[in-house]
């Protein structure tokens, strides 16, 4: 299998093109900029269309228009840019428009910094914009997954008619690893609802305008049922050395990579510990947790935030075992020894659990 040595952001962009992304609209922002630059260099040469928009607000509405016209389309940004897109994302979810959006997180709140962080988890998984809606959110933990999950994101978007977000951090965006694109193919979906000119058919109308409460409720119930179906069908996590595990680490993205090292280090000292890595953050893999409930004695959640995913973990395990937390913030990455030390303190030395 041919492997290329690429940056995460570039692999993501290449994966998108190979998955049939036809249009890219975006505005530059570190640490996602390699994506827009890669698209500028490659997309139009390979038959697609690239536009640098005047803002992230404009970018997401260009994505809206192209998605509504039935094409595979993508944008990428970081933190503040994603904040500017929230109104448009709400509109896209309301209109059930499929598109892929990438957040290479940067620290916040405010202008923040460029270091790795996972502070946008709430924004990504809990709505972010106004109204009752969900994005599907996928979290890669390697350069290979930056490409693979982006390709999957296009299929999920088209399949469920919903915007899908890739949520990654600056380490994943910037680091280089070997990557293969051989398993990425274009899958096409029928889009009879798209506005392509009403030739020989009834006109198509894409709108979320609704001044009648009765129809508003029907629409809301339709979306609710769709989200329930996604929750049932898309329970996606990696279980790493969990078969005999008495303790579980829970982490995604770069934190999960560090935690794999923690698993090895702790197992070397005889502790039966594994890692549960959510790959889909929304829907959260609650059902995967169920299978561990009766034999896991404690959980350690590791995040690069003040504690966001941990809320979903707590809901998933329903207070059946103690949940502890280790985190770094502001662009700092949790280190293996720190996590090992926290684990030992909490679970082996009988220390405090939160």
């Amino acid at each position, binding site marked *: 299998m041919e492997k290329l040595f690429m940056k995460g952001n570039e692999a993501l962009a290449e994966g998108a093109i190979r998955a049939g992304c036809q*249009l890219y609209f975006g505005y530059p922002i570190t640490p996602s900029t390699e994506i827009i630059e890669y698209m500028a260099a490659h997309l139009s040469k390979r038959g697609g*269309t690239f536009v640098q928009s*005047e803002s992230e607000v*404009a970018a997401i*509405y260009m994505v*809206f228009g192209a998605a509504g016209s039935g*094409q595979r389309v993508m944008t990428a940004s970081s933190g503040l840019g994603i904040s500017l897109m929230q109104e*448009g994302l709400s509109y896209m979810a309301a209109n059930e428009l499929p598109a892929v959006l990438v957040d290479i997180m940067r620290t916040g709140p405010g202008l923040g910094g460029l270091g790795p962080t996972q502070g946008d988890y709430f924004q990504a998984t809990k709505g972010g914009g106004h109204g009752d809606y969900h994005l599907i959110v996928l979290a890669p933990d390697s350069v290979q997954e930056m490409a693979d999950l982006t390709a999957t994101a296009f299929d999920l978007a088209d399949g469920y008619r919903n915007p899908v977000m890739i949520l990654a951090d600056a380490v994943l965006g910037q680091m280089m690893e070997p990557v293969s694109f051989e398993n990425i193919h274009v899958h096409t979906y029928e889009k009879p609802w798209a506005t392509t*000119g009403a030739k020989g058919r009834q006109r198509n109308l894409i709108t979320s*305008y609704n001044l009648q409460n009765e129809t508003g409720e029907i629409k809301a119930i339709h979306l609710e049922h769709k989200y329930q179906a996604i929750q049932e069908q898309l329970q996606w996590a990696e279980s790493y050395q969990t078969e005999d595990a008495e303790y579980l680490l829970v982490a995604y993205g770069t934190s999960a990579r560090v935690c794999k090292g923690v698993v090895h280090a702790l197992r070397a000292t005889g502790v039966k510990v594994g890692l549960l890595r959510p790959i889909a953050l929304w829907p959260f893999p609650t059902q995967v947790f169920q299978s561990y409930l009766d034999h896991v004695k404690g959980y350690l959640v590791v995040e690069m935030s003040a504690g966001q995913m941990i809320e979903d973990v707590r809901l998933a395990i329903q207070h059946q075992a103690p949940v502890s937390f280790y985190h770094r913030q502001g662009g700092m990455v949790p280190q293996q020894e720190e996590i090992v030390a926290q684990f030992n303190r909490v679970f082996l030395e009988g220390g405090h659990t939160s």
Partner: protein
Amino acid sequence: MRVLFEKTQALTDVPFHYCPGCTHGIVQRVIGEILEELQLLEKTVGVTGVGCGGFSEQYFNVDFQGSAHGRAPAVATGIKRAHPELIVFTYQGDGDMVSIGMAEAIHAAARGEKITAFLVNNSNYGMTGGQMAPTTLIGQKTSTSPYGRQSEESGYPVDLPALLCNLKGAAYVATVSVDTPANVLKAKRAVRLAFKAQIEGLGFSLVQFLSTCPTNWGLNPVDSIEWMQEHMFPEFQMGELKCPETFRR
């Protein structure tokens, strides 16, 4: 029986909801008649912003996307780039296009985006009950300029077409009205040429319609037309502001 007049195929049978004397309806009929005349009904996508004109998504008998307040030119960009063979137009109010959506409007023009924009300027925010817009005239009373718009507080009215003329990407720019049969004919010519500019791939085209809002102006339909003629016509530069040489008769 000989048919003397028929409603254009470009409009659906949904009744207009517009207030009596509001010119939104006439503007939409003008645009619809040109769409039909140019045989564009099966290859056009319209985009609205939010405002009273937003309801036009129910009236135009073509594929349509309802976008957010001010964002129609960006949405139209996405559609046109996805399908360059389609004809794409936007329909926006003055609050929508000249206030919250100013950036998207100017940049679509600057990029020479091959879309056609229709701006319906009634010098206030109609839908939300008559607040001040960037187009509100000095001294004009609205619910957020209850003592009349003061330039010291709120600056001066914006004439967007006059601004956009300076951009190379703008191919055809005009301001018209639909207050008299003669002006309806001029408006139809402007709409026709605006679409022609798009069809020929010359760049961005914009037609501003000076329009009435009797409900929020507190005037009856006839007095509204007179108020518009007396106060708005002198403020906004009317006629063809920019026209490709080849279009001139």
